């Protein structure tokens, strides 16, 4: 009675038996020991990455909900505060990220065709675009510091950089503070993802250099690509929501 009939263990032909007989035949060097074949490994990577991205959507979703709620509570303050953002810089960054998505997709294609030069060139370009985005973001943040638009004790204390609306309605300034708080929280969390992404790409680049990515096995490259595109897409939502909604209100800066 020590074994149930539920499923008697018998050797499964296409699932390489583990244990004593399992190590006999050659495995693909990229196949981890607990998987049966590359297909199972790849399926796991794909499911895992998508589940992770769903998690990310929920994470950013919390921020988006907060933004929507406050925008709804304080529509005027939010519209006028968003006018204090630097739209040309934001638009530049949007273009940079879109370009990086293209190079990323080409890098993954380089994996699928097994072209190492394509992988390397495209990964370098992706990293360069990613860093360029962060540099632009840095200048944008620095500008906000100089203009006293960072939520804090001296918020909106520089009359040169406070729009007439807030001069006329000082009671709206705390709401502008919420706007800028959300601006920094959302773009900050996004930028943190960009930094992680750039690091990830550097690691993938080193692996590509070793020639690890071949047509039948380049999961890591492909999954990093998914992550990179996701971070781009977040920006594609952030940019119109934060910079452009209500842009026609008040004077442009």
């Amino acid at each position, binding site marked *: *009675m*020590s*074994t*149930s*009939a*539920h*499923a*008697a*263990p*018998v*050797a*499964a032909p*296409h*699932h*390489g*038996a*583990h*244990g*004593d*007989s399992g190590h006999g035949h050659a495995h693909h060097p990229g196949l981890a*020991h*607990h998987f*049966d074949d590359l297909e*199972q490994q790849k*399926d*796991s990577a794909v*499911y*895992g990455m998508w*589940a*992770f991205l*769903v*998690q*990310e959507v*929920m*994470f*950013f*979703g*919390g*921020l988006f*909900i*907060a933004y929507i*709620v*406050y925008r709804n*509570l*304080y529509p005027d303050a939010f519209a006028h505060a968003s006018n204090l953002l630097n739209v040309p810089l934001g638009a530049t960054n949007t273009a940079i990220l879109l370009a990086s998505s293209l190079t990323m997709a080409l890098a993954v294609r380089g994996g699928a065709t097994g072209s190492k030069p394509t992988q390397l060139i495209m990964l370098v370009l992706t990293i360069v675009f990613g860093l360029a985005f962060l540099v632009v973001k840095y200048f944008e943040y620095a500008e906000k510091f100089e203009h006293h638009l960072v*939520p*804090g004790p001296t918020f909106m204390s520089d009359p040169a950089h406070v729009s007439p609306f807030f001069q006329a309605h000082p009671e709206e300034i*705390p*709401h502008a*503070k*919420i706007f800028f*708080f*959300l601006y920094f*929280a959302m773009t900050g969390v996004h930028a943190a993802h960009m930094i992680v992404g750039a690091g990830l790409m550097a690691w993938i680049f080193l692996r590509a250099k070793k020639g690890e990515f071949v047509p039948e096995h380049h999961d890591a490259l492909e999954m990093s690509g998914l992550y990179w595109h996701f971070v781009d897409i977040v920006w594609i939502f952030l940019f119109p929501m934060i910079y452009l909604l209500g842009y026609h209100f008040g004077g442009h800066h």
Partner: protein
Amino acid sequence: MSAQAVAAPHAKIAAPEHRETYLNYDYSWKSWLFTVDHKRIGILYLLTVAFFVAIGGLFAMMIRAELLTPQGDVLESETYNKIFTMHGAVMIFFFLIPGVPGVLGNFVLPLMIGARDVAFPKLNLLSWYIFVVGGLLTLFVAATGGVDTGWTFYAPYSSTYSNTRVAETAIMVFITGFSSILTGLNFLVTVHTMRAPGMTWFRLPLFIWASYATALINVLATPVLAITVLLLALERIFHIGIFDPKVGGDPILFEHMFWFYSHPAVYIMILPAMGVISELVAAFSRKRIFGYSFVAFSSLAIAVLGFLVWGHHMFVSGQSAYAGLVFSVLTVLIAVPTAVKIFNWTATLYQGSVEFATPFLYVLAFFGLFLIGGVTGLFLAAMGLDIHMHDNYFVVAHFHYVMVGGMVTAFFGGLHYWWPKMFGRMYNELTGKLAALIIFVGFNMTFFPQFIVGYMGMPRRYHAYAPEFQVLNVLSSAGAVVLGTGYLLAAVNLIWSLKFGKVVTEKNPWGATGLEWETQTPPIPHNFEVTPRVTQEAYAYHEMYSGKEAHGVH
């Protein structure tokens, strides 16, 4: 039985005296701290979780000591607030949520589906390390002044007025949350891609369905908590108003975001426990689960509906009455899939050959306690009634019946059930039964009186109370001592067995179905000598016990 013949060749590979198991193949501490074996990670979780239960239990005893008398004489009001906050936070984030998935799930989930490991073994270890970092931060908070907001961290008290370690605790919750997100992600993928050949979705044991549903909630809900507490921490650290109404923030938004996670979180706690109960009910009544697919889908239904009821925590928080009405109705609906499970379990017992072993006593305790917990949840779901009950001891009794009477009872049942597989030793049966009985009696003594004092109007979270509530509070405190004794006895029995318990080498000491009973006891490092091939439904007890026709024939 004839099926043995099929398995026998593997059993001969090593003589029983020096069989290699996942426990003895390497004794070094490094082999434990850097293990990627899901079974060892399960044991690591067991140790950490046990440690935090002890701490949380200590806080509970301090609460019950204070409430022996109506005056606030044992603890200062501020200290009392810190103690109940720590009790709740430690128990929820370090035991109720990770308990079943971290310990039992890690150990049996890959075994049950015939896999060599989870899909991402290194990530699994990382989850444990993240958990430990969160735990260390909790100890740091406790040792350096604590936090007094309650485990719910309501703004603006938490964001502005409390001068305790709110930001640190928020970061602790953030970190610990990622441990459960990653475990959920791992289980989700494992169930999708790591099933043995023949292990179709409808042959999966119900514990797997429950763990899968839980993993979905982990991935979808926990990130929202993460971002919520991150915003709270930022508000605390940089003094920017986002939840504080004084500067235009919206405290109700905090509550919405918090409960959007924390109601689904109660299902993160109970669903895996329900999965354990399904296994135990089948194993100890030697019967196929009645209405397998109903039980399986009720887990998913609970996971989905669980996302739509969070507003029942906010009936009196300033949420609109219309929203309250909708939440009230949806909350009542969620009792349906829950009831489906209870009915199917009891129908399974009907005409089963029921064996009253220790794990099964926990099942019976679960039935009684969880039923009371669930039904009182329905009382609270009625908006009108909840205006009276909210934030009083009736709520406290409700959630202890579901969480302690439900999850903890199932956890103990599961731990006793899989213990021989985990360690190759059997606990003392009589002591085990006695402990289960003491726990059941002690539990009711502790928490039933709280329904009554709550109904009479005793509010929660105060260190002093009106004198007329004293008799029932003394009863509750006495019950807590009985309950604590029961848990200790069960724990001592299990620990004692590691050295003195009867050695178990049989693969299947309970005569249960399930792949985890087809591998060696304790399992070899890679689980199975040969990848199993599944040819039958999950609970084929009928075939197992009545005829030989199905055996070994493929």
